[in-house]
């Protein structure tokens, strides 16, 4: 059995990762784990450090302090092996709107070394998975924002990753499109893909999810949703989030005095 297939190895392990932009601390000793086949919600307000964390996990930025592993492969030491197991949906749209859905997906396949015949088979599969089979010849610019998001998810799944990162994927979507996308991705976790879903919308987390609360560059709490709520002495996640953030802000103020 290959190391990456061992069930006890986490899909994602972030250990004591810190990152600065000049003097500004963007991540401070962040540690978190995403289990295989789990849906983990990374909850944080804008500016909490979610996108910086994603940039480090995807090797867009180098890790200066700490370690990140994807299925046991260190992103700094074995970026190729780690990135092969990773699918990403970024916050900003990263599709080429002038070309068709199929052409976008073929380009992505090539970036993973997948030959065109195999790519065509995989494209049919992933479009079916996100319910967009009939739009493969459509120019991306003609799609709605919700449909573009689905295509981005299809693209992230094309090379059959075992871990999927989504950075605020429902921003700009209406309520129905948001529920659809969330439902699709939850289904992927059931099918065996580890999911890290970054959001600032508390209602996107639900019972059975793992939750990581990130605030002002630090992890305030993490674990199963029910545990996080219980440890915070709160009634629900919204209440727990408010309490955690308020306490952290008060501590920061006191430390500054």
């Amino acid at each position, binding site marked *: 059995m290959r190391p990456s297939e061992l069930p006890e190895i986490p899909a994602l392990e972030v250990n004591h990762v810190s990152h600065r932009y000049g003097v500004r601390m963007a991540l401070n000793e962040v540690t978190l784990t995403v289990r295989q086949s789990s849906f983990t919600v990374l909850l944080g307000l804008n500016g909490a450090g979610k996108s910086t964390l994603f940039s480090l996990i995807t090797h867009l930025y180098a890790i200066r302090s700490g370690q990140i592993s994807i299925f046991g492969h260190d992103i700094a030491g074995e*970026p190729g092996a780690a990135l092969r197991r990773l699918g990403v949906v970024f916050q*900003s749209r990263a599709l080429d709107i002038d070309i068709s859905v199929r052409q976008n997906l073929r380009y992505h396949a090539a970036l993973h070394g997948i030959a065109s015949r195999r790519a065509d088979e995989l494209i049919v599969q992933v479009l079916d998975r996100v319910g967009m089979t009939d739009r493969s010849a459509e120019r991306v610019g003609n799609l709605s924002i919700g449909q573009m998001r689905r295509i981005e998810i299809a693209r992230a799944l094309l090379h059959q990753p075992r871990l999927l990162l989504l950075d605020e994927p429902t921003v700009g979507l209406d309520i129905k499109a948001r529920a659809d996308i969330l439902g699709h991705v939850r289904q992927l976790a059931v099918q065996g893909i580890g999911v890290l879903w*970054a959001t600032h919308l508390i209602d996107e987390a639900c019972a059975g999810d793992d939750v990581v609360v990130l605030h002002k560059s630090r992890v305030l709490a993490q674990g199963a949703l029910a545990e996080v709520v219980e440890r915070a002495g709160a009634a629900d996640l919204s209440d727990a989030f408010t309490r955690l953030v308020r306490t952290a802000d008060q501590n920061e103020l006191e430390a500054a005095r």
Partner: protein
Amino acid sequence: MTIVSEVRASLDRRGFTPAQYLICLQGIVWREALRFLHQRERFVSALVRPLVWLFIFAAGFRQVLGISIIPPYETYILYEVYIAPGLIAMIQLFNGMQSSLTMVYDRETGGMRTLLVSPFPRWWLLTSKLLAGTLVSVLQAYAFLLIAWFWDIEAPALGYLTLLPVLLLTGFMLGALGMLVSSVVKQLENFAGIMNFVIFPMFFASSALYPLWRVQESSPLLYYICELNPFTHATELIRFALYDKISWVSFAVVLGCTVGFLVGAILAYDPARGFLARRGGPGG
């Protein structure tokens, strides 16, 4: 460890076969070709610029600037003939900067991330992107030569063939320069500065529009600046190749600059060393 074995080890570590590396390269070139086909106005404007210089500027200056017999020319030539190689280099310079503009745009919109999160080594991704841009500039250069041919600017038949590898090299050098520039440009709005600080000085302080002996007569200092300008050597390499000859000095300078700019661009886009991670964060 030799460079070959080092590259082989790097390929092995990634777990991709050479065929997969070629698939990746092909995909990047194909995408650039698609983008090019969808932006026909870019092709037209890339051609109009040098043609304006050729048809208007050169016609006006023909009587003012006399060109003596200088290598690689063996007879007196018209001014239009003299500036044609410089205009080809100009096409490649603008194409290189256009590519870098596209990279800044891609970085702002997120398209660049798609490329950079590929599991292939970053040097391979960037070199492939560079090659794709170079091929586009070569097409533009030959389209220009075709139009120039109807304007009686003809080179020996073999010259059109020997020009091809030279255009690939000069296109690569100017594309790598553009890539290096794109890594330090923070926003699309800052790009206007590139026109003033990179493109115009490179073009005007070169042998593209006037032979350097004329520059030396008027300003020895400017002459040395022109001699140090890699764009001068790209122009001269193209000029000599078009007449089935080679300028070894220019070849060495262009080759050295290509390597230098390429290494610089790869380092700049390297997450461990580059400028990108040191900037303000994405803010999420």
